């Protein structure tokens, strides 16, 4: 299983023997510039601008589509590794750094002076990031898909790593299914019934995981679309039953 910031696209899903099993982060591509550059929006970009990014990513393709749509000639500088992109942008080789906004936020912490840089407000593409498995193993696909769904549904019902085991006698049948005290859902994948309980206890629900890795590290404190549908976001998963 590949669980990294990999965008779910048609060609990746259909053409190379992989299957995407869900979205665990709704992201979008953005641009980072220096605060003192005087550029406040992507509409301020002019002909001749140089943009750094990683090779072989959806970013490279989106960048071209974006600049073409605005009829701006640009210089694409594509490196293999993110560290090299950061170094080149930091040194002033390129005027803007473009990748998924979560990536921009994370890489900014590696700059020599993070406060000198800002991310422009516009989002120029959809980048649904999610886990990937090999095509052809239906049971494994289901296991990974429903592991992700479990984490999100657990947050929906208020089940977290600390209270999960104590909720075995809950009144809510949905919660009871999540912690394994009702139903035989695990058997459908060949797992025992506590499979979802173990996930919630060891890794936490979606909200806990987000808080620990993304909000508390200062990368993206605002969850944006990555919030439950009941709270204004777009995390809506099929019910585990």
């Amino acid at each position, binding site marked *: 299983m590949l669980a990294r910031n990999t965008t779910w696209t048609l060609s990746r899903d259909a053409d190379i023997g992989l299957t995407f099993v869900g979205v665990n982060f709704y992201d979008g591509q953005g641009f980072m510039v220096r605060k003192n550059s*005087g550029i406040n929006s992507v509409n301020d970009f*002019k002909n001749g*601008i140089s943009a750094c990014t990683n*090779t072989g990513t959806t970013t490279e393709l989106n960048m*071209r589509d974006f600049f073409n749509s605005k009829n701006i000639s640009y*210089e*694409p*500088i594509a*490196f293999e590794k993110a560290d090299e992109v950061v170094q080149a942008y930091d040194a*002033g080789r390129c005027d803007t750094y473009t990748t998924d906004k979560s990536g921009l936020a994370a890489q900014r912490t590696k700059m020599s002076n993070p406060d000198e840089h800002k991310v422009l407000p516009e989002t120029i593409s959809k980048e649904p990031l999610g886990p990937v498995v090999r095509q052809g193993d239906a049971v494994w696909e289901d296991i990974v898909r429903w592991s992700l769904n479990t984490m999100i549904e657990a947050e929906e019902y208020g089940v977290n790593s600390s209270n999960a085991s104590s909720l075995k006698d809950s009144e809510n049948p949905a919660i009871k299914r999540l912690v394994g005290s009702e139903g035989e859902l695990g058997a459908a994948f060949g797992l025992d019934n506590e499979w979802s309980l173990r996930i919630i206890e060891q890794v936490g629900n979606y909200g806990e995981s987000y808080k620990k890795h993304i909000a508390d590290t200062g990368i993206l404190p605002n969850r944006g679309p990555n919030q439950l549908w009941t709270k204004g976001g777009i995390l809506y998963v099929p019910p585990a039953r």
Partner: protein
Amino acid sequence: MIFKKFNIENKKARDLIPQAITVLALLSVIIYFATNAQINMGNRGISFGFGFLNQEASFDITFSMIEYDGSHSYGRAFLVGLLNTILVSVIGIFFATIIGVVVGVSRLSDNYLIAKVAEWYVEIFRNIPLILQIFFWYFAALRALPLPENGISFYDISFLTIKGWYVPKFIWTNFNIFLLSVIAAFIAIYFINSYATKQREQFGKQLPTTTISLATLTLLPLITFLFLGVSLTFEYPVLKQLSPTVFTYAGGVSIIPELIALALALSMYTATFIAENVRAGILGVGKGQKEAAASIGLNKNQILKLVVMPQALRIIIPPTTNQYLNLTKNSSLAAAIAYPDIVLVFAGTALMQTGRAIEIISITMLTYLTLSISISIFMNWYNKKMAIKEK
């Protein structure tokens, strides 16, 4: 009885059998891997085929010697990468040879300082891994270059900045006529030189070939400028402001810092090995040769050029061919600093976008193989030509 006769009396047949077995074994290994790959790829739903080369590439390349943008095919992107690889290899080979010969000869100099500096150069640049040298030139050295607004200017027509070396663009009218005149000049020089050699061998007359050659090379193209309608104008790079603090140069040609850094690193690194080859070659010429040459009144430069080097070249060329091949293959490290060579563009971006790993890597390997073999063939021809013919 028949077998014994067959084996002993027919050596060719005897040699044929192990060769046939080896070829069969090799073929069976290749066939095994091919069918294995086919079966496994079929199971995983991965398709195989070269049709993707006609698909639209959808990504741009910052530096290309031919017309290219994202609407062209992957096949064309491959061509762009290939030309970029050849470009940086040629530049690298050129400078590595010059630096290598100079450093190699310097190490044998009687001047203590020159010899020591050359020795230190070789020891330092030979022993640091190439990838680190590339990173050094790109991130450390080039980073020291100024931003465009403070660019280092050469008479205001060329500017050296962190975003690239901006030089004037040559705008030709009737470039083909000029090109033809240059080719004609080279052909004329070749004939003049062979005529001059015949004159020298038959009559002992030494024509001033260098002067005549230079004159031909300048006069013929000059004639095209004056009478045949060839003309040249320049487009100069001009500072352009993109935002309150962001500048760049518009117009002219921009030589990207990635190319400069890679060419520099490759040249400096490979030059050390070529220098050692040159030194070995010169030391390999018998001492008697130098003494005999001195005794007929040649000075040190003449001894080197007329007596020592022609003999040393036989020793220098084969290992130097190796170094040229190494340089060409080392240029694949370009991916680390975003120089769009064939590995970054084709075996990198195109591979990641299409997922056709086996096809793309095979094509890339075949390409490097072809490049290397071409260089080898040329160098072997040159070596044969240089070989001193026993008279």
